[in-house]
């Protein structure tokens, strides 16, 4: 067993883990942070996506020990301490960008980093940007709208729904 420490959603945490403990299991089982989900075991679906030291990563493909000393953000850390939702969280609701909710934590966490990489992405750039996150319910169209809506709000411009 190894002791591993990191900051998760602004809180310093530490625990004893096996070397093989995956970061997703460390978060979900040891820390009870159950927002990121598990949807596959071949690193395809992205439901486990977290923000690790400013990078979108699939936490199912990282050992907790690799994240020693890192800064981790999950969906649970997106809202402000006073409870005010992040604009992306509002946007997903506004634009019906979710149905069963299972891909949503990973999707929003990825969208968060995407908008930092590229504050005004085109639709094609959004679709490429979320290509590591699978969704079975929405067909992505309203997820794209949600991200465009959030981008508009962050940039202080008016959101214009694309003509059908």
């Amino acid at each position: 067993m190894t002791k591993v420490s990191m900051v998760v959603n602004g809180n310093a945490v530490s625990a004893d883990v096996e070397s093989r403990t995956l970061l997703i299991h460390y978060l979900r089982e040891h820390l009870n942070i159950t927002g990121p989900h598990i949807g596959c075991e071949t690193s395809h679906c992205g439901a486990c996506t977290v923000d690790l030291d400013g990078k979108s990563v699939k936490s199912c493909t990282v050992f907790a020990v690799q994240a020693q000393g890192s800064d981790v953000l999950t969906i649970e850390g997106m809202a402000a301490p006073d409870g005010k939702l992040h604009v992306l969280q509002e946007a997903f609701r506004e634009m019906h960008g979710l149905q069963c909710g299972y891909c949503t934590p990973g999707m929003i966490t990825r969208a968060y980093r995407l908008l930092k990489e590229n504050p005004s992405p085109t639709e094609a750039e959004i679709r490429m940007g979320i290509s590591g996150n699978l969704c079975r319910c929405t067909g992505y169209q309203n997820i794209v709208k949600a991200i465009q809506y959030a981008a508009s709000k962050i940039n202080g411009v008016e959101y214009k729904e694309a003509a059908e």
Partner: protein
Amino acid sequence: MIPGSFEYHRPSNVGEAAALLASLDSDARVLAGGHSLIPMMRLRMAQPSHLIDLGGCADLKGIQVEGGEIVIGAMTTQHDVIASDALFAAAPILRETAMLIADPQVRYLGTIGGNAANGDPGNDMPALMMTLDATYVLRSGTGERRVKAREFYHGAYDTAAAPGEILAAIRVPAPPAGHGSAYEKLKRKVGDYATAAAAVVLTKANGRVATCAIGLTNVSDKPLLAEAAAAAVIGSALDKAALDTAVAAVEAICEPAEDQRGSAEYRTKMAGVMTRRALTRAFVLAK
């Protein structure tokens, strides 16, 4: 789904890493980005007893473009390859290829060194490095050895790296100014390995192909350098006859596996189609 147990090591420089690798039993593996190795470990297709995490080795990172040579630290992530304007200015095919590897999350952690050194015939960097005539800098406990990419790949997961050697850096001669390049990758969806892919780097002179190199991904048990195909277009204005000859030469050296991407025949033909498209596009871009 759950990997087997192992001991974890995190050296702080490549010398330490190489020494560790030499001292531990042969069941030790280096961990780069982890996005080839960890999935295999989760399926228990790989069960190393030791993992040497190169993530703490600062001397394996970094990008330099100087005096016509590009040097990329092996632990440079695909994301950083894409983000580097210096690399893009010197050899835009690097960004183009990296953007076609996996997905955004994988590219944040996956490394150019891991992609190049793994020996997985599905990886994209090997054929590209052969096309660019790159040299691999291998570090071991005893020192450093350089092997050309064109001599590095022997078969599936079978490379010229000796046990205990770690790929430390990739040295690429910058293609001449005005060169044209293209990476055409046919795949079933974003994130998939290539059904077939072709990398082309060429230069033009007086409207004709002056130099040309063609590399092929995932159409054999190792990446391929299509030398006869490249030779077929040199001196031509890339007319139909030259293209057809190149395509036939590409098809002749392909021995792809049959899988759910398609039959060997289909994948061979697709290598030809990708080559034709990459040559055509690179030729237009070349000055």
